[in-house]
């Protein structure tokens, strides 16, 4: 065979084997794409059938069907694996033949090139080399530098340990809005009705600030407050005052029911639709907003700073910031709450005269509505491995604090105007992160607390334990719910219990399906809503615990559900609000998106919702 004939043969072989290899390659790519889109091992049909079988375990026909389908899926999978293996061998064989054929073809075709007469210009070569080397180095180092400066070091911003100081400091009160604006500030208690809030001039504020000096000593910790106000005793708050505002975590009395109307049901954080304003909160915190009149209160804190912020509900302007400092703390290891709790997890409470805030450090502060400190004290550093989270609650002239730690539990009541302790009751509970509620049982109120192992009730005036029921376990995060004389308590991996208060308290029903980890249950009109951390919303019949409907969201819920304006508002951690009608059948009204991660529970004002994301406070309104 001549070289020419060998060349032709090699070329033809290369063509055939090359086309063959290409076809095999395309078939394998198709096979790969097919497996990606329809994985026989992840059959939705099979999953559905298994779920049906779990509800009806005695269905033999279904079992047979599942086995047959499973066998088909396995056969499909192994057939697919065989196809891939065979295809790989064929592809490699085809490529080898192609390469060999091409090499033979080119080796027969190769000619020694005619030597060129031109000579190498070394200086040009060196110049080009140097330039390209410089360009490449510049690109490599330039990109590295840009990437370095754009990178955020999340680690170092989080766990710097600082020491508390014993310095005496003037209490800083930062007046953000000019005096004129403060004097003109009005509140809307209801739509169409306005009420002037008390105004304080800058000079009077300065005088008040001078009167208040930080002079705490170690003995003051946990006992008498650091500072006292010289203001006169204030008018006692009424239930109507609380219902007309949104004064604490989960609204009036902590029940998860808002009484405001015309609440929006659609918005879009990304485009700004129905977003009245959005402000960045300087310090982080997982507490929820609280509203009184035209003022919105939140707190923020990190390992070195603690602040109470007041925003104008209408404009979002920061009215004032009160830095909570100068409070003597007991000696001991500094607090290090976990990252998902932080230093400002508890929500503030307000009675329209003062705002009360507590932090993970145990610092408790009372300021007036202009941000001036009234009193402050440290409750003792909470021995809490995640960080203190229980929010404050008040009623009349009493401020309630649920203080369950690893060193023991207690509930206290302080005088709102002075901070002096009125009563304290030791509990047999373990550490918890739930918040107290006030249940109105017609002729009296009861202060109800959830923890492990008990749900307990106390007389708000005296702190006397009225009843308790051992029905929970684990690390209790959800607070109780209450409706129509029944207390509802729940915790993940434990129970959902409906409790009839009394001595003794009795469990009306209990179930362990769909339990919340953090979000508190809410009940109204015979329906009980549960939001789980794995994305399920369940509506129970509050009278017997029967599940009426379920809904699955793509993200879990940490924020507690709130019922407002005849609808249930449930905010998931992706910032999507799932709005349902209060109905025995599931009616999803909308799923507006905030565009920011959230764990805070919404707050409500007439025609407004206040939502706190990880970084911003949003005001939503039509």
């Amino acid at each position, binding site marked *: 065979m001549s070289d020419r004939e060998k060349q032709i043969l090699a070329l033809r072989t290369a063509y055939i084997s090359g086309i063959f290899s290409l076809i095999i390659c395309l078939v394998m790519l198709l096979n790969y794409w097919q497996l990606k889109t329809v994985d026989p091992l992840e059959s939705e049909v099979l999953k559905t059938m298994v779920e049906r079988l779990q509800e009806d375990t005695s269905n033999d026909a279904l079992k047979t069907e599942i086995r047959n389908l499973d066998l088909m899926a396995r056969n499909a999978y192994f057939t697919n694996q065989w196809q891939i293996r065979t295809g790989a061998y064929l592809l490699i064989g085809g490529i080898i033949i192609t390469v060999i054929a091409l090499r033979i073809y080119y080796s027969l075709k190769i000619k020694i090139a005619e030597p060129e007469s031109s*000579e190498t*210009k070394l200086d040009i070569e060196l110049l080009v080399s*140097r330039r390209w*080397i410089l360009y490449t180095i510049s690109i490599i180092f330039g990109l*590295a530098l840009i990437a370095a400066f754009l990178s*955020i*070091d999340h680690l170092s911003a989080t766990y710097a340990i600082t020491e508390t100081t014993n310095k005496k400091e003037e209490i800083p009160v930062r007046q953000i809005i000019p005096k004129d604006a403060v004097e003109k500030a009005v509140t809307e208690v209801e739509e169409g009705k306005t009420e002037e809030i008390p105004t304080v001039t800058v000079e009077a504020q300065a005088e008040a600030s001078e009167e208040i000096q930080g002079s705490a000593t170690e003995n003051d910790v946990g006992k008498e407050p650091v500072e006292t106000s010289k203001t006169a005793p204030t008018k006692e708050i009424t239930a109507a005052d609380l219902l007309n505002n949104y004064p604490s975590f989960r609204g009036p009395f902590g029940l998860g029911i808002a009484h405001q109307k015309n609440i929006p049901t659609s918005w879009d954080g990304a485009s700004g639709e129905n977003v009245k304003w959005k402000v960045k909160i300087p310090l982080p915190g997982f507490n929820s907003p609280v509203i009184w009149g035209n003022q919105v209160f939140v707190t923020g804190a990190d390992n070195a700073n603690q602040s109470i912020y007041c925003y104008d509900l209408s404009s979002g302007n920061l009215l004032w910031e009160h830095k909570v400092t100068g409070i003597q703390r007991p000696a001991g290891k500094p607090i290090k709450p976990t*990252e998902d709790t932080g230093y400002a997890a508890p929500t503030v409470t307000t009675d329209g005269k003062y705002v009360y805030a507590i932090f993970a450090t145990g610092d408790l502060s009372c300021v007036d509505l202009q941000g001036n400190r009234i009193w402050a004290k440290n409750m003792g550093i909470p021995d809490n491995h995640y960080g203190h989270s229980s929010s404050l609650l008040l009623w009349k002239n009493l401020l309630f604090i649920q203080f369950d730690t690893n060193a023991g539990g207690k509930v206290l009541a302080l005088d709102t105007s002075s901070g002096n302790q009125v009563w304290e009751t030791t509990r047999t509970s373990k550490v918890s992160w739930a918040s107290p509620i006030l249940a109105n049982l017609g002729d009296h109120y009861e202060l109800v607390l959830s923890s492990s192992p008990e749900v307990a009730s106390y007389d708000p005036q005296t702190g006397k334990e009225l009843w308790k029921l051992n029905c929970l376990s684990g690390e209790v995060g959800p607070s109780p719910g209450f409706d129509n004389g029944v207390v509802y308590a729940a915790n993940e991996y434990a129970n959902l219990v409906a409790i009839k208060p009394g001595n003794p308290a009795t469990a009306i029903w209990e179930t362990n399906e769909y339990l919340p980890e953090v979000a508190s249950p809410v009940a109204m009109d015979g329906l009980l809503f549960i939001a789980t*951390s794995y994305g399920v919303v369940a509506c129970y019949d509050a009278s017997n615990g029967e599940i009426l409907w379920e809904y699955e969201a793509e993200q879990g819920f940490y924020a507690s559900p709130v019922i407002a304006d005849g609808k249930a508002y449930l905010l998931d951690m992706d910032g999507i609000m799932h709005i349902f009608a209060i109905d025995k059948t599931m009616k999803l009204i909308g799923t507006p998106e905030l565009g920011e991660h959230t764990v805070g529970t919404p707050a409500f004002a007439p025609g407004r919702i206040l939502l706190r994301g990880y970084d911003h406070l949003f005001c939503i309104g039509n």
Partner: protein
Amino acid sequence: MNTRIIKILAIFSGLLLSVITFAQQRFPRPDFETDYEAPTILAPEPRQGILEYLDVFILFIVLSLTTWLILKKRSRKGVLYVSIFTLIYFGFYRNGCICSIGAIQNVTLSLVDPTYAISLTALAFFMLPLLFALFAGRVFCGGACPLGAIQDLIIIKPIELPIGIRRALGLLPYLYLGLAVLYAATKTDFIICRYDPFVGIFRMDASFNMLVLGGSFLIIGMFVGRPYCRFLCPYGVLLSWMSGVSKKHLTITPSACIDCKLCERSCPMDAINKPVTDPVSKKRDVNRFVLSTMLIPLWILVGGFIVSKSNIYLSRANRTVNLAELLITHPELKSDPDHIDIQTFLASGKTMDTLVEEASVIRNQFYFGGWILGGFLGLAFGIIFTRKTIYRDRTDYEPDKGNCVSCGRCMDFCPVGKEDLTTLMNLKN
């Protein structure tokens, strides 16, 4: 005589290889009574101790044979056959592991971690090619590297890359070497092994992306000679250093070059230095060289500063750092039952504080390692740049000692010393 020695060695090796098939596994797999076939595993099975030393012995034999074929026999065909054997044995049979390129990481880890015991095999795989390179040039690349072999066999119609592209891409192996050492030293990852484009082909099993990467390198390799060896291989950096000062090296001509220019286009790897005769101002050359040399400390400082500042994103390849940052930025993922890493961490009982502390320590290691890596890169780039200011007279066609992979192709094009020029004449026309 030489042929007899080769035959004896071949028979001996064959006998030893036959032992392998019967003594592969330390613990034999259970016998199934049904037709069940055990699935192939992704990672190669551990070797029996004696067989690991056999691999070292075979490597030594292959290196020695390639050296003889290049320096004495001057046979391109011989080197080709050795390459095929290397591809079959070290590539497909041994599944590409252990290899000299990845051994860089084993050596690095053994230097920084006193609890890590490097095996003698890994050490031998690392040292032997370097020793051979010191005395005979990059014979490892020519005949003993399976990655080089597969690329060498796939060359069909090589093109000459523009010099600027070659110089630019030629810096990447230094970057890859530095990163590989940094990640190995911080116990983050063995990136050379993870991103080896051909190991999936050797093992007939890899992720889709790695198969695409390997396939791409092979397709490119049909037209650009040995792209991985020239523009990525980190071990090639060390070999080029050794080869650059080697006592002996492949030569195109067996004696004096007659400047016939027949070998000018013979090297697919563009590793032939051509004669230079045009006059250049030597004084300007010296000034440029001095200035460039004086700037090297600045290169080192700048490089060290930039790479040390890159510790934040570089350290994110570390699992501990990545997990800590993930939990900090997305604490809601703790409730995701499908996230295995997070669920494992939560079940371990380790606190977030501990995790963040460990991550911070690792990030600091990256900071200090970044200074070293950046300094090394600055030094390397500075030296490479400085070398391009040096004018060297050259009258003969010579292989570039650092870049030449000793494949031997150019030797077939040189007419000097050839008794039979028929083949050459046939090649001409």
